[in-house]
């Protein structure tokens, strides 16, 4: 049997990894461009999105009216950008995952609604140590823009303005731990450049809603 195993050569060469989707802002000239896909897989893989998948674009601390098409372009002058993005309903069928409502299929296995939220921080004041929305949101409890590679950051996760305990927080697609009873967690910023800290939360219902909220900034 051992000889057989030696004789038999089987290699699994994985050219792409299986990870959750990222939403990030890419600086280009005087604008920030919204990107969707996999930022931290072995190769950055960008997926196209529809402009109607963007449900809300807000700038905190500054009055800005937005109109958008593909790709979404934002100004670099806004202190905090907030983007709500949805890919809609997903239904697991016996012939694969379909981007449609489960009612459209005769024998669905599972179904959910997917939401991605992005908070991109460019400036800091102490008033930013609180949530701005009633949605799933990661709040930095210290100025993240002063931190360097290797520093730790204290964060707090909120949903509906209330701290959210026992939810897993990931950094660069690696789970770093769960929030404590006050919704707090401390994580190390391992790499310089664009930071993406992610948390997911599921709201139960007839069709469950999966929210993924991302806190992003540059160090």
């Amino acid at each position, binding site marked *: 049997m051992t000889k*057989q*195993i030696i*004789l*038999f*050569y*089987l*290699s*699994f*060469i*994985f*050219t*792409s*990894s*299986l*990870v959750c*989707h990222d939403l990030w802002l890419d600086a280009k000239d005087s604008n920030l461009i919204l990107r969707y*896909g*996999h930022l931290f897989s072995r190769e950055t*893989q960008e*997926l196209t999105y529809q402009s109607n998948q963007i449900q809300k674009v807000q700038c905190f601390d500054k009055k800005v009216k937005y109109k958008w098409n593909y790709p979404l372009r934002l100004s670099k002058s806004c202190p905090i950008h907030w983007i709500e993005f949805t*890919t809609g309903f*997903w239904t*697991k*069928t*016996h*012939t*694969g*995952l*379909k*981007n449609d409502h489960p009612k459209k299929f005769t024998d669905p*296995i599972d179904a959910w609604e*997917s939401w991605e939220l992005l908070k991109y921080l460019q400036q800091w004041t102490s008033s930013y140590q609180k949530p701005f929305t009633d949605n799933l949101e990661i709040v930095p409890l210290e100025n993240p823009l002063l931190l360097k590679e290797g520093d730790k950051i204290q964060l707090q996760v909120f949903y509906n303005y209330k701290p959210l305990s026992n939810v897993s927080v990931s950094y660069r*697609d690696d789970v770093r731990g769960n929030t404590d009873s006050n919704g707090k967690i401390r994580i190390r910023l391992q790499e310089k450049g664009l930071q993406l800290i992610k948390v997911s939360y599921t709201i139960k219902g007839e069709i469950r809603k999966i929210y993924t909220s991302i806190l992003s900034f540059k160090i």
Partner: protein
Amino acid sequence: MKKFLFYLFLSFILSFSIFGHDVRFETIETNATIVKIKFGDDTPYSHEKCEIFLKENNIEKLYQVVFTDPNGMFAFAPIKDGDYKVKCFREDGHGINFQLNKKNSVPILEKSNLSDQIIRYLIGISLIFGLFFLLWKYKNFVTY
């Protein structure tokens, strides 16, 4: 007699055509490769389509189309030696491409694949043991 032989021949010919359209099955005991696909959090990549291509003369030819089962698995038992490229792609953009190589005319055996996390744990444990070994050696060196 001639008539009998004629009918016998006719029925023989007809039975051939019937057998030609007949679909039968058999179970074979063989060393098939069971390919298991899962997400980073161990969730199975279930009920998804995968296409397998055989690379011949630098041309990729579609060899097999499969759907993963509820556990994210499918059986693969190729007859020919060669490099088989597996491409799985889901509508939400999550997919995987990998290669299975079959050599020496022997079937590919099932092989489990260690996840990055397990590898990291093994490296961590090895480092701890290595450190303890070095400390033990150092202690012995200082004592004697």
